[in-house]
């Protein structure tokens, strides 16, 4: 284990900018390459980053405090605003925690609807991540191929609940609606579209000399360090640890589906990109299988378990987690028996990954820090809450 890094003083960019041969530079918080509002203060030697300190909290909205003053159902729309690239996964993660607290098992049909919607948003999330990663390195074209397909996915969400990004899918105890009628037809076309876009992206990037130079070996991380830092999701799998809650701790009906967990080897930017590319294909496989099961269900099968109109879980505390596109997304909930949660704690995957950022970019070029940042898929909304 490496020693904890010493700290760059955060705000003294005044007179003593030059310390020896090092220059302290400030990146962000409002900068087109910084993905929202992230700030990094970096000490550089020429173009090489010697050490860095991220500063977060520019998008802090007090989600946890807000939750303590809202009822259980009123908090669902707030969860949309955590990871806004895959809001459905946040909704389901929260609902799953409340259902666990209440001891409610949701009907199979609702589980399948949730699986299909979650995998769709996983694809959308990965598409954004890969597209932006290309843009940040200078490959603009794949971004359009990916974003066009993402828009098609958002069309399904729009049919489902009327919103593109902040979907607020599901209620506590199950889902509020079936999949839209045209889903089957749409999915058949969409599937081909996603695969085609991935093929194009693959052709443009994967064996591209410039892409390989810019990504292979950049911000490589060992599996041991990654586990020590609490990495989960694609960033951990890129380091070679085949850990996925969908396989290791199956929830809903994931144990019935046949899919693989792609893993990388070096934990660098290239591996993270490859893991995400392969995961999209696995998600397509899961949706196909889930939809086949869904179609066999009777039309009038229940979508919602019996839950009271006013949600009042018994006093107690639980932690429930699921595999979000970025890693383990968990909710710790404490109830005092009233209709409002006593304490909500979100465990966002980005939070753990981003605290290793100084370690990841140590010794890299400044331009590569941006590539590293986009490959981690840091979403300020769930980082700052």
């Amino acid at each position, binding site marked *: *284990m490496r020693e*904890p890094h010493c*700290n760059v003083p*955060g705000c003294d960019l005044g007179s003593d900018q030059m310390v020896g041969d090092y220059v302290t530079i400030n990146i962000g918080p409002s900068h087109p390459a910084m993905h929202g509002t992230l700030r990094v203060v970096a000490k550089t030697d020429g173009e090489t980053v010697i050490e860095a300190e991220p500063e*977060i*909290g520019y998008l*802090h909205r*007090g989600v*946890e*405090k*807000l939750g303590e*003053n809202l009822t259980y159902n009123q908090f669902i729309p707030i969860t949309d605003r955590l990871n806004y690239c895959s809001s459905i996964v946040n909704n389901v993660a929260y609902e799953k925690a409340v259902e*666990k*607290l209440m*001891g409610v098992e949701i009907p199979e049909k609702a589980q399948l609807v949730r699986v299909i919607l979650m995998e769709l948003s996983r694809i959308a999330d990965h598409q954004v991540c890969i597209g932006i990663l290309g843009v940040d390195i200078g490959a603009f074209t794949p971004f359009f191929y990916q974003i066009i397909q993402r828009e098609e996915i958002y069309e399904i969400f729009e049919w489902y609940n009327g919103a593109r990004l902040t979907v607020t899918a599901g209620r506590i105890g199950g889902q509020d609606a079936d999949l839209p009628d045209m889903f089957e037809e749409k999915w058949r076309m969409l599937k081909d579209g996603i695969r085609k876009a991935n093929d194009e992206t693959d052709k443009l990037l994967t064996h591209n000399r410039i892409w390989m130079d810019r990504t292979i070996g950049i911000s490589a991380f060992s599996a041991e360090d990654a*586990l*020590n*830092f*609490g990495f989960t999701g694609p960033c951990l799998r890129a380091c070679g640890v085949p*850990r996925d809650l969908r396989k*290791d*701790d199956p929830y809903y009906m994931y144990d019935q589906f046949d899919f693989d967990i792609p893993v990388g080897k070096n934990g660098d930017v290239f591996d993270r990109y490859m893991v995400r590319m392969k995961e999209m294909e696995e998600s397509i496989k899961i949706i196909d299988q889930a939809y086949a099961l869904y179609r066999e269900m009777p039309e009038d099968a229940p979508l919602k378990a019996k839950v009271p109109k006013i949600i009042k879980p018994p006093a*107690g*505390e*639980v*932690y429930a*987690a699921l595999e979000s596109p970025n890693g*383990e997304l*968990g909710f*710790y909930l*404490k109830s*005092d028996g009233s209709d409002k949660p*006593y*304490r909500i*704690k979100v*465990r966002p995957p980005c*939070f*753990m990954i*981003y*605290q*290793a950022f100084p370690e990841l970019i140590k010794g890299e070029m400044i331009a590569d820090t941006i590539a590293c940042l986009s490959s981690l898929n840091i979403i300020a909304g769930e980082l*700052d*809450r």
Partner: protein
Amino acid sequence: MSLQDRIRHCLQNDVLDLFQCQGDLFVQVPRDRIVQCLEKLRDEPGLEFDFLVDVVGVDNSALHEKEIKAREKALAKEKEKAEESGETGVENEPVVLEVPPRFDVIYLLLSLKSNERLAVKVKVPEEDPEVDTVTTIWRAADWPEREIFDFLGIRFRGHHNLKRLMMWEGFGSYPLRKDYPLQGKGEERHLDYDE
């Protein structure tokens, strides 16, 4: 052996409380033994809780207030009953209700081998809100501990960089404490942008 027994066997006398809630296992340990306990849980063969998922801080003051009020009510009722039935002989001494420590710090652990989860809890009193840092075991505890310091004002002894994470330096209050109002105390109005 069930997980409970294995934990009891591993931690021996350090287990102050062990309870289950909807399938989640919680174990309470003494505050000054937290680092040793977590190390033991990590290294003990058969347990191997080697992954720190998160650290959660909870302010229990509102819960305790509610409990004390309920208990006072119950006591008053009992007294009334006793007076009604004419048992004046037994003069009750004024009962002093003990307030439990205000804060909980909960370490959510995971075993990568067996996928078992465990929550280790320590109670932290308001007068002396300090816990030993666990960044020496997992570097993952770095930001969660800073966040708890920021939001609840619990200090982590030995943390290498304990300063506010979400709020700005000089923000005077701890927003996730139950006595902090939802609208805030107007701290942002006192920000001096010219400085």
